[in-house]
């Protein structure tokens, strides 16, 4: 691999800034949950630095607050975070063949929804350094936000939290919309995904499934459907659907 380390790292850090700001807001609310679970400022920061997964942390903190069995916490984390299995599979195909194990292990550590999103949006093979740069900056916001959440609770005005929390969705849109512009099938797929997601959130029974499980089900169903209807071209490693 011949990735210019410094350039990739720098670009990653730049793209990590909006993630960090969004994380700051989300992690802040996690810090409040951590305080309710009886964690100290340091423990909350440690939780966020080592987990950096919003749904997983919420679920885990809820169990800690209830003093649940260790085993239950382990099962909960695997189930709630199962969507990362799919992302991890997809990311494995974005790496140059022969990428060393240490990079794979580090990339796995930094695999959050947002880092995944922007990593997959890179052209060609992914330079692990790009993801490290983004993750390094982003996790600082995540960790700091959680610590602040425990420390100062509800001081940040609601309106600020409200505004900052859509930043992450803005990033998702910046990742999925531009390729859809050139690809009508992708456009339809994204619209369908959003529609189906809204439907799943509203339907009786299905809406009672956890959000994580609904994300997994929809991802499996819709991606498989799309793969059958419109398989990508064979020889190109480049991600062009049309």
């Amino acid at each position, binding site marked *: 691999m011949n990735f210019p380390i410094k350039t990739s790292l720098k670009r990653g850090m730049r*793209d990590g800034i909006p993630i960090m700001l969004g994380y700051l807001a989300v992690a802040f609310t996690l810090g409040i949950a951590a305080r309710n679970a009886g964690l100290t400022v340091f423990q909350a920061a*440690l939780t966020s630095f080592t987990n950096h997964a919003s749904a997983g942390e919420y679920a885990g903190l809820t169990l800690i607050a209830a003093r649940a069995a260790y085993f239950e916490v382990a099962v909960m984390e695997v189930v709630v975070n199962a969507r990362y299995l799919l992302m991890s599979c997809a990311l494995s195909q974005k*790496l140059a063949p022969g990428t060393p194990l240490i990079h794979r292990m580090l990339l796995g550590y930094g695999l959050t929804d947002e880092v995944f999103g922007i990593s997959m949006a890179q052209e060609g093979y992914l330079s692990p350094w790009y993801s490290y740069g983004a993750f390094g900056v982003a996790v600082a916001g995540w960790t700091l936000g959680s610590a602040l959440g425990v420390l100062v609770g509800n001081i940040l005005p609601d309106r600020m939290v409200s505004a900052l929390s859509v930043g992450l969705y803005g990033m998702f849109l910046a990742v999925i919309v531009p390729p859809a512009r050139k690809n009508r099938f992708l456009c339809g797929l994204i619209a369908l995904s*959003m529609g189906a997601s809204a439907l799943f959130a509203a339907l009786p029974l299905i809406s009672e499934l956890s959000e994580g499980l609904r994300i997994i089900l929809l991802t499996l169903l819709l991606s498989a459907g799309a793969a059958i209807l419109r398989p990508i071209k064979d020889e190109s490693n480049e991600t062009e659907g049309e």
Partner: protein
Amino acid sequence: MEHNSYIYIFIMAAGTYLVRVLPLTLIRREIKNRFIRSFLYYVPYVTLAVMTFPAILSATASPIAGLAALLAGIAAAWLGRSLLQVSVICCAVVFLLELFL
């Protein structure tokens, strides 16, 4: 049984890390199967779209502001704005709208 917060935190981290790292380390070569490759190609689009909507509507104090942020974000991304710009535009739309709503 006495429960220790640090053990809880360690278990959470270990469980989370496991699902993140296993496929990355186990799938070492390029997948040749066309269906699986196509499937994995579509995964990010579907996952991110599913996570964005309808969740963006409940992320904000007012769902209308969330919807406006969604539309503004799509428009900005469509016009080729950068990651940071799209993100900031979404935040700004919510911030401004919620001054009035």
